[in-house]
């Protein structure tokens, strides 16, 4: 490894050759502001178009100011990040950006969490000297994401996420010059595009150009309606991130406070999606073993590998981009939808409430879940199994709006019966978790032996594509894991080409899995946040008394009282789904 010595703001710095000035400065505590640069080390994502020009610095011997994100640190370089010339240029450029940006901060969804707003504050902009025409585009409301491109500053982070990381190819820079913006083809609405609603674009957008559809008001209304029984479920990844919205360190587990807060918000039943995650393992695990059994028996037509299906962004992805492979994924519904289906049948019966008087709300780290609960197949007579899906961020807002001091709340438990879960369910929130949970159950069901070592370390990590072979008592099971749709595409293309050796593949649309979901508190490009959330989930798993889904007593009871057995007719009806070729639905206006 080659190192270079340079000087930044009179501090001498030694960094590896090839390091950017921005990073070199950061290493000695000089934080150079930027609006477009974004680097997620662990998932190998870097966005540095050098477009915002906020990060410019003075480098001795150069005619022009240098963008510190794109300029590599060189030996003996002398860099100044805070000269008059730099500060003036930086502020003027920011003023220019603001001159083409609506000044509606007070009512903007991103207010308080907006990098542009913060930057204006940080650089001390008090006046915009250059007024003029602002670019205008039509607003786009999809079931999950709202695009208000008048607020786009062309940082291109969303484009990087959508194309390089997710390979979805929905968003691309279009037009030229002043009218340049990031948009889908033909500037069509997201709803008609290839968008999977994974929400990674929203997660990295520094401004209010990309935000989630807000359902908080509908929820407040439902909670206030005395006729409605409002049931809430919270996804595993939410508990590992919600605290960040209240100033807690990333990775702080707030499961108990979250349950307490939900109760104080007025939800009638505070349940856990972890419960239906265990249910998912029962169904999906059984399906896997079924296919595996047929395969071992020599059935040539059986579809292997089986692909997990709990991630709605991933489901959208293969429905829109791989419509020829609809029979490969598991037919099991996602935990959110399993929960809704059971809540509005089994549980509704238990509390003697009619379906239409029940409102099921989910709190998800995800924006695609908003779309998922609107899918027609997840409704009975037009009444959806899950009425509203809100993001972790929206929940935090609801809590704040209700004047609840989150940090002083006591730890409370979820309600029964749908609040009970196992450690296997908790790790659904991270990449590798679903397949580990499935392996724990499938192993015991298949081998009829007790699993000695519950932790499958070989399935854990942050590598984009991972694989491991698990010994099912002499039967080697090849498992593949991909997070981020770009990685998923690679595995799927192998399957398509008949080259895949895997028996089962877990796919999560978002980098890191649900912990890095599009509905989570914004990590603003800090990948250590994702790692902390991941560790928190494994910790919760470890601390759970029961760590295998099939050992969840309430799940056993559910089968006993209501469903019969995994893959029973009733289970099929309520807990499974089928997929559609949505490629043909991508419309041209």
């Amino acid at each position, binding site marked *: 490894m080659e190192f270079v010595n340079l000087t930044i703001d009179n501090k001498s710095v030694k960094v590896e050759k090839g390091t950017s000035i921005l990073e070199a400065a950061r290493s000695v505590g000089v934080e150079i502001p930027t609006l477009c640069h974004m680097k997620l080390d662990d998932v190998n994502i870097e966005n540095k178009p050098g477009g915002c020009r906020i990060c410019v610095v003075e480098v001795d011997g150069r005619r022009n100011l240098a963008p510190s994100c794109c300029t590599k640190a060189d030996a003996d370089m002398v860099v100044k990040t805070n000269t008059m010339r730099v500060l003036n240029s930086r502020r003027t450029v920011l003023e220019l950006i603001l001159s083409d940006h609506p000044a509606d901060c007070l009512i903007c969804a991103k207010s308080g969490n907006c990098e542009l707003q913060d930057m204006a504050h940080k650089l001390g902009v008090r006046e915009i000297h250059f007024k003029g025409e602002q670019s205008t585009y039509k607003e786009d409301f999809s079931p999950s994401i709202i695009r208000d491109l008048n607020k786009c500053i062309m940082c291109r982070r969303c484009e990087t996420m959508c*194309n390089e990381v997710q390979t979805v190819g929905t968003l*691309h820079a279009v037009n030229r010059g002043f009218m340049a913006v990031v948009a889908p*083809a033909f500037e069509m609405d997201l709803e008609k*595009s290839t968008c999977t609603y994974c929400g990674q674009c929203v997660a990295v957008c520094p401004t209010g150009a990309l935000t989630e559809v807000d359902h908080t008001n509908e929820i407040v209304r439902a909670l206030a309606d005395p006729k409605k029984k409002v049931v809430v479920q919270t996804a595993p990844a939410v508990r590992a991130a919600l605290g960040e919205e209240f100033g807690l360190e990333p990775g702080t587990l707030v499961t108990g406070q979250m349950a307490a807060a939900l109760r104080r918000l007025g939800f009638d039943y505070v349940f856990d999606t972890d419960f239906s995650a265990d249910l998912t393992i029962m169904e999906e695990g059984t399906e896997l073993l079924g296919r595996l059994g047929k395969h071992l028996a020599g059935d040539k037509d059986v579809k292997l590998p089986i692909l997990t299906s709990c991630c709605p962004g991933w489901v959208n992805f293969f429905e829109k981009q791989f419509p020829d492979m609809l029979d490969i994924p598991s037919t099991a519904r996602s935990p959110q939808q399993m929960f809704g289906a059971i809540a509005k049948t089994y549980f509704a019966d238990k509390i003697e409430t009619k379906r239409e008087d029940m409102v099921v709300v989910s709190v998800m780290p995800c924006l695609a879940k908003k779309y998922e609960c609107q899918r027609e197949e997840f409704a009975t007579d037009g009444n959806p199994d899950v009425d509203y899906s809100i993001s972790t961020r929206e929940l935090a807002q609801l809590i704040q709006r209700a004047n609840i001091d989150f940090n002083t709340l006591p730890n409370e438990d979820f309600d029964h019966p749908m609040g009970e879960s196992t450690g296997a369910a908790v790790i659904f929130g991270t990449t590798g978790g679903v397949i580990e949970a499935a392996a724990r159950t499938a192993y015991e069901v298949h081998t009829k032996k007790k699993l000695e070592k519950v932790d499958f370390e070989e399935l854990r990590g942050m590598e984009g594509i991972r694989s491991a072979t698990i010994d099912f008592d002499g039967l080697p099971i090849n498992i593949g894991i991909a997070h981020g749709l770009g990685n998923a595409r690679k595995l799927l293309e192998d399957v398509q080409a008949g080259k895949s050796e895997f028996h089962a593949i877990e796919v999560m649309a978002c980098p890191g899995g649900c912990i890095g979901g599009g509905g989570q508190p914004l990590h603003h490009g800090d990948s250590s946040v994702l790692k902390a959330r991941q560790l928190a989930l494994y910790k919760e798993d470890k601390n759970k008394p029961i760590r295998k889904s099939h050992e969840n007593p309430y799940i056993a009871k559910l089968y006993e009282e209501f469903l019969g057995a995994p893959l029973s007719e009733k289970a099929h009806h309520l807990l499974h789904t089928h997929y559609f070729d949505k490629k043909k639905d991508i419309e041209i206006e």
Partner: protein
Amino acid sequence: MSSVKIKLNQKEVDKLREVCASFNNEPDELINVLHKAQEIFGYLPAEVQEVIAEELNVAVAKVYGVVTFYSFFTMIPKGKHPISVCTGTACYVRGAEKVLDEFKRRLNVEVGETTPDGKHSLSCLRCVGACGLAPVVLVGEKVYGRVSPDGVAEILAEYEV
């Protein structure tokens, strides 16, 4: 920019596929493919871009991003006799703007638009390199040099009937 609704028939789709194939369906050749396609269709409606994206295995948003980047590509059908006024510097200093204004006035269209009867579309272009004839106007392939605002009516009259 709005896109244009058009339904391609199978023959046209096949033709496009042939064009893409002639460039080995190489994503590198996107711009060459778009040139060819525009030659065939006269413009690049959304569906043409869809087919090209499919064949070259690139996102259609990218194709659109490229189409909207380059001024040579258009998603609006050109008029039967497209009029282009050169607004290169040489033409500008010799009065191209006034000529352009006169075309706008007479045709009652803005730059980038086509007359309702589809006869003329009006566009600007930067330097055809006939600076000796400035200001220069192109109608289709035909070049008119040293055009004055007064000459505009005369040029348009050629395309009456």
